């Protein structure tokens, strides 16, 4: 499911079946590091979209959790915890995050964070890029399916 009118209508009809939320954590910055973060965000977006395509019937791809890279970490953690609680209250039994920001790998929810390494997408050939996204998406897919079996 995506955050579109059509998908949300389907979600409302079938919400018992859609018990997993995938939330991209998207840092933005201007000036130093902007290009790197944008590249990372682009890749996260592509991977998340591909995973959503394959697991459409159970996974809800949320609009990104966007923040400035230099926001105080404590406030961010608090805001994310609030989002997490809301999603859980809405019946999302499984909640996963996908990000290119390494900082999320340390924290309470670290085992629910899927980290995507930053690569310079803009200097890559189309077919190589495609291959990369497919591989990364397949890995994330295996991770999610594995966790479904466990939880």
């Amino acid at each position, binding site marked *: 499911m995506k955050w579109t009118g059509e998908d949300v209508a389907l979600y409302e009809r079938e919400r018992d*079946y859609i018990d997993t939320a995938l939330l991209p954590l998207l840092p933005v910055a201007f000036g130093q590091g902007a290009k790197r973060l944008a590249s990372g965000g682009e890749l996260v977006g592509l991977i998340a979209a591909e995973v959503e395509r394959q697991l*459409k*019937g159970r996974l809800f791809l949320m609009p990104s959790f966007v923040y400035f890279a230099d926001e105080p970490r404590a406030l961010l953690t608090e805001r994310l915890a609030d989002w997490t609680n809301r999603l859980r209250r809405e019946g999302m039994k499984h909640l996963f995050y996908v990000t290119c920001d390494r900082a999320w790998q340390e924290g309470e929810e670290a085992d629910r964070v899927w980290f995507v390494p930053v690569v310079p997408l803009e200097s890559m050939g189309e077919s190589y890029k495609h291959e990369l996204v497919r591989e990364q998406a397949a890995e994330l897919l295996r991770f999610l399916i594995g966790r479904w079996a466990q939880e």
Partner: protein
Amino acid sequence: MSDNKHRVTRRQFLNYTLTGVGGFMAAGMLMPMLRFAFDPLLKDEAGTDMVAVADVKEITTEPKRFDFKVKVKDAWYESEEPKSAWVYKTDKGEIIALSPICKHLGCTVDWNTDKEHPNQFFCPCHYGRYEKDGTNVPGTPPQAPLDRYEYKVKDGKLYLGKAKPRKEA
């Protein structure tokens, strides 16, 4: 006298102009209507554009996944949508191209990934299953068989068109 005969009267002049202008206006209104009426017919002919997906010799009796892309227009945003098909040959040599989209809620099914139920299509989301020919296994969430792609073979290549729901079962 002869001058008078060829002279256009005010009444005639107005008649001609009004008919002319009226005609243009009527044509301006009718043309889009006619186009709307005939467009679906014209489109169907052009709409059979099929995409080359695989070499026929790559196709075996074991379902194999082929990825391809089709152009889609979503509002004003034109893009290429990735699609896949599970393709295999029956013992009689007939080609079957199945859409991997689960008929339950639209996940992508995989071939032979559920150890307890080998040689079936398996949906990882809610454990829906389908036989090799795409028929849904009763008792699992899907209520309909997998869609089949229209296909044609030309110059040793497999071309796929639209995925159509199967009527039976």
